[in-house]
């Protein structure tokens, strides 16, 4: 009684085989990340210093710091968020809570998802045509940020929509049946419960906006500027473009410099993502229904 049969042995073997297959996949996925981080840290860490973070580039960008690029990246990200978050969340609320389920809504959903897949260089060209030329913003932080906003908007919409949809329908029905309007329902019940998810989606887009080069290259980011931007109508330096420039366009750059820039960029993105994960865990811990 209870002894293993040949069927059990065979099942165990199959079980082991799949465990190995899936485990290997995981390792293969992790290896590049580890290599990238290791290389960045080992080659970029000696470029790291206060002066690297807080001073201007010197000697044709072959020495000195990268402060204008860090500063510019923050500008670009903040302005693009100011545009994309209100617009994206509002659109998601409309699609999730108001729009009737008909052909038009489904087309809009489809278009939104497809828009998320448009290559960033196409967004860049759109940005040049729309913001730089048509709206006459010139190459400026405003034009570059709006281009980034257009690029991140679809994902903000989709992730916000998903967060809104994850709020149980029973809550909405409870509200409607007490005579609450749609807006009262959204404001008092749906939004507070979707907030974490929306926030996470937004922060993930921050890291994307910070890392993109193509959309800002033609619309507002400069290779080198001897001054910091004063308003959204100025051009600016940005980390992603600076990395491209020092890695490929400038001769005689010490090897550690581009790695240092990359390390700072990855560091900013990682910090953002960590914050997103932390907020999500923190708020989800409190969310029980």
């Amino acid at each position: 009684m209870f002894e293993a049969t040949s069927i059990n042995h065979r099942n165990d073997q199959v079980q082991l085989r799949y465990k190995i297959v899936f485990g290997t996949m995981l390792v293969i996925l992790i290896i590049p990340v580890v290599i990238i981080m290791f290389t960045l840290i080992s080659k970029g860490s000696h470029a790291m210093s206060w002066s690297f973070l807080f001073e201007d580039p010197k000697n044709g960008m072959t020495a000195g710091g990268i402060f204008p690029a860090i500063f510019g990246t923050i500008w670009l990200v903040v302005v693009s968020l100011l545009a994309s978050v209100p617009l994206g969340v509002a659109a998601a609320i409309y699609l999730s809570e108001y729009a009737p389920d008909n052909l038009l809504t489904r087309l809009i959903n489809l278009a939104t998802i497809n828009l998320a897949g448009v290559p960033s260089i196409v967004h860049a060209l759109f940005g040049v045509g729309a913001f730089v030329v048509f709206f006459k913003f010139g190459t400026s932080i405003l034009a570059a940020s709006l281009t980034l906003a257009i690029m991140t908007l679809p994902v903000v919409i989709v992730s916000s929509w998903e967060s809104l949809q994850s709020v149980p329908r029973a809550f909405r029905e409870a509200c409607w049946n007490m005579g609450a309007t749609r807006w009262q329902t959204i404001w008092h019940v749906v939004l507070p419960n979707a907030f974490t998810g929306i926030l996470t989606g937004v922060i993930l887009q921050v890291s994307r906006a910070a890392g993109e080069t193509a959309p800002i290259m033609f619309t507002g980011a400069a290779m080198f500027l001897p001054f910091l931007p004063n308003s959204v109508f100025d051009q600016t330096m940005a980390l992603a473009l600076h990395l491209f420039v020092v890695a490929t366009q400038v001769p005689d750059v010490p090897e550690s410099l581009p790695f240092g820039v990359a390390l700072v960029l990855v560091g900013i993105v990682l910090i953002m993502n960590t914050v997103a994960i932390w907020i999500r865990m923190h708020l989800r811990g409190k969310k029980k229904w």
Partner: protein
Amino acid sequence: MNTSDAAQPLAINTRELNLWYGTFQALFDINLKIKQGIITSLIGPSGCGKSTFLRSVDRINERLGYVRIKGAIEVLDQNIYEPHVELAQLRKQVGMVFQRPNPLPISIRDNILFGHRIHNDKTSSKSEEDAIVEDALRQVLLWDQVKDRLNQKASVGLSLEEMQKLCIARLLPVKPSILLMDEPCSALDPKGTAAVEELIWELRGRYSILIVTHNMAQARRASEECIFMLMGKVVEHSRTEELFVTPTHKETADYIEGRYG
């Protein structure tokens, strides 16, 4: 007793009510006179239209978009399908209790005050609100269990029975006259069912209660009049006792004896 007894005021009065979901007709010529202040139960096999009927009394069906209605439903002598009817006002008069208790993910206190707050422009003082909360919770026999944790989230730490009582309690502060209940006990265990039935019995007289149930024993125990529906039509409407003891239609007799359903 004659069901069309004119002396007793009516809570719900329907005239030739027909309802379609797209091309599917779910209700056929419903003519019901549901009296004020008593418990009326609505029984019938799955898909007979009882929930559909319930959901057209507070017009929540319309959310679906493809629902079409002909005929009239008068709630307190007012046809609720007239164009000037404001849904928020209708739903103040007509409260709905669902199959699964669905307290909002806010505190017990805020759950009770939710309806009151959305229907009142000016904010009430804390003591007024306290009185509202206590009154509502006392009416549903829940005050003693929860009075020390009113600020606790309603969706944690309450049993299903307590949640369901809370869902009934939160309807009361806006002073509804009709309570619609869609199988309010089907998610509860026998003890919870008994407790909620007791509560519903307790509320009789103050509110007109229309309760959909699959549980015939419950309909028999906990209602004064009973409506039997089949395939979208009303077969029989009489005093509960009569309907169960001396049904006038063969279909009713077959159903209550468990020959189908």
